[in-house]
């Protein structure tokens, strides 16, 4: 926000930690200090992190429920329409709308659409695909998918101040704090 001194515009600050315990504790302290535009980057899911950052529950399950219901109704409607309206065929004298026989394909379309929603919904809610992100500008960040843990505070945070925030992050005992060029 108020960045006039640095040559490349600053996206935020990135602190590097070397253990899961350290990053969770740092994330908790940062949130408790009143920062809101924060994120943690870890090489594997850490369940304590949801609480440390007080992450809101994702609405993904509701989307998947919607996908499943759509799949079920769509699959059933397709079969009903094809068998009774579009192409009525007398198969062994059974009723055209033999709904018990339609259960199996409708079951499969339910699962198909739920799974598609779960995957593409997750990718979309994560804001992916996004091959470029400012955090990738920090050379050490390539270890975020290996053995290092990172905490970022973005400049858009109302509480962000270049010097004070850096001092705060230094106080969390990280391996180092870097600027994230945007």
């Amino acid at each position, binding site marked *: 926000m108020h960045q006039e001194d640095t040559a490349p515009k600053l996206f935020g600050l990135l602190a590097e930690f070397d253990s899961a315990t350290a990053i969770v504790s740092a994330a908790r302290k940062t949130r408790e200090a009143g920062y809101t535009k924060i994120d943690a980057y870890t090489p594997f899911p850490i369940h304590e992190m949801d609480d440390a950052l007080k992450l809101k529950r994702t609405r993904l399950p509701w989307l998947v429920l919607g996908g499943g219901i759509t799949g079920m109704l769509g699959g059933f409607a397709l079969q009903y329409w094809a068998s009774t309206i579009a192409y009525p065929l007398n198969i062994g004298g059974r009723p055209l709308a033999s709904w018990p026989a339609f259960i199996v394909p409708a079951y499969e379309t339910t699962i198909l659409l739920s799974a598609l929603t779960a995957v593409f919904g997750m990718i979309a809610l*994560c804001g992916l695909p996004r091959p470029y992100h400012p955090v990738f500008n920090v050379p050490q960040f390539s270890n975020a998918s290996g053995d290092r843990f990172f905490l970022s505070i973005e400049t858009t945070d109302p509480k962000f101040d270049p010097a004070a925030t850096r001092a705060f992050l230094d106080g969390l005992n990280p391996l180092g704090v870097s600027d994230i060029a945007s």
Partner: protein
Amino acid sequence: MADRHAPTDSHDTAHAAGMARPPVSDVVGPGHSFGSITSKITSAILTKGFRPGWLVGFLLAFGVVQMFLFALTAVLVKGVGLWGINIPVGWGFDIINFVWWIGIGHAGTLISAILLLFRQKWRMSISRFAEAMTIFAVMCAAVFPVFHTGRPWLAAYWLFPYPNTMGLWPNFKSPLIWDVFAVSTYATVSVLFWYVGLIPDLATMRDRAQKLWIKRIYGIVALGWRGSAKHWQRYEIASLLLAGLSTPLVLSVHTVVSFDFAVSLLPGWHATVFPPYFVAGAIYSGFAMVLTLAIPIRAYFGMEDFITMRHIQNMAKVMLATGLIVFYGYAVEAFMAWYSASSWEGFMIANRMFGNYWYMYWALILCNGIIPQLLWFKKVRMNIPLLFAISIVVNIGMWLERYVIIVTSLSRDFLPSSWGMYAGTMWDWMTYIGTMGLFVWLLFLFLRFVPMISMFEMRTIIPPAKVKPEDAH
């Protein structure tokens, strides 16, 4: 590589205590850090050139794929008359092999979905390649029914409900159409599940790769994954949901495959035991195939720390349990033949045991019923070469099972005037062995270019991943 990070406390203790042989109960060898897991698993990919053993296997499999393509071309040019199928045995090798391959695929989904729901940590190191195995097995399976139609280029409107100019729609009262829905959903969901599991590891590959073009390729497929807390939260929910969805799916797939038989009226097919017995058989053959693959892979790539004796033992136990269910299925078939007092059923079982294909039936009982009983003994479960041999025996046994079910029932119909014999021709065998070549070939490609073990999941089960309470830090 610069990924050896300073050891944390728990890493130290694990190292000090763990110089001896790892106990059988461990799901990961001692002394591993995040860095060592990453470098061990990525080292199979990020090396220059090809290892000679890999190259030889790859080329052999590639040769078999050529034979496969030749056999399929011949079938397309001359027609399915090249195969041994006839009237009355119209289903022959194609459906035998289809069911066999689909069954093999089931272990991958079982390991990645059902064991995830049960929070079985031993699942993690074998789930990746078991899922890959699922996808490749389903691909091999799909070849058979599609070519069995005789005119695969027309199969689209026979199989899939899409608006065509002829105004035709599939018959949704037929189990064969149910099967199309079940198998195509299964293939799609398996690919999705596999890919979702790969995303964080592809990001690791992107960050480890030295060459820019390799970095770019992994970068594109990793979608820009950066392991943010918000990503992981949604990722974990999505994985859990996918596992929850795949579990009923995998149970439904072989159930629907069994409907292809059970919904018909043929003695030997028309049985209520078929769905559970087929599902158990699928898991049985799938675990046998996972063992057949895991044993050489772990030896060749030195993955003994990740695929430990605990994994090998557990897979053997699953095989034993599902094998007993399958054996129970055989017993029920024989019992019902007597108990139903139906002369057709009685004839069917007598024909299976003592008819023209008696040797197939008894070979099946030997392979699937008797030899796997050795797995009761821990000595056998700990004996890798013997276990490998048993896993092959079970794979053969499960193929024999489908052969017995399909061929003996079809060859002895209700009317003696329509009886006939069946045997696979050279083209049948070339296609069948060809799909094995395709399967192995795809597996070699997978092992070379994709992390064969889920790195991010392995990181979660080593001691340094545990978050200690705040004040301890």
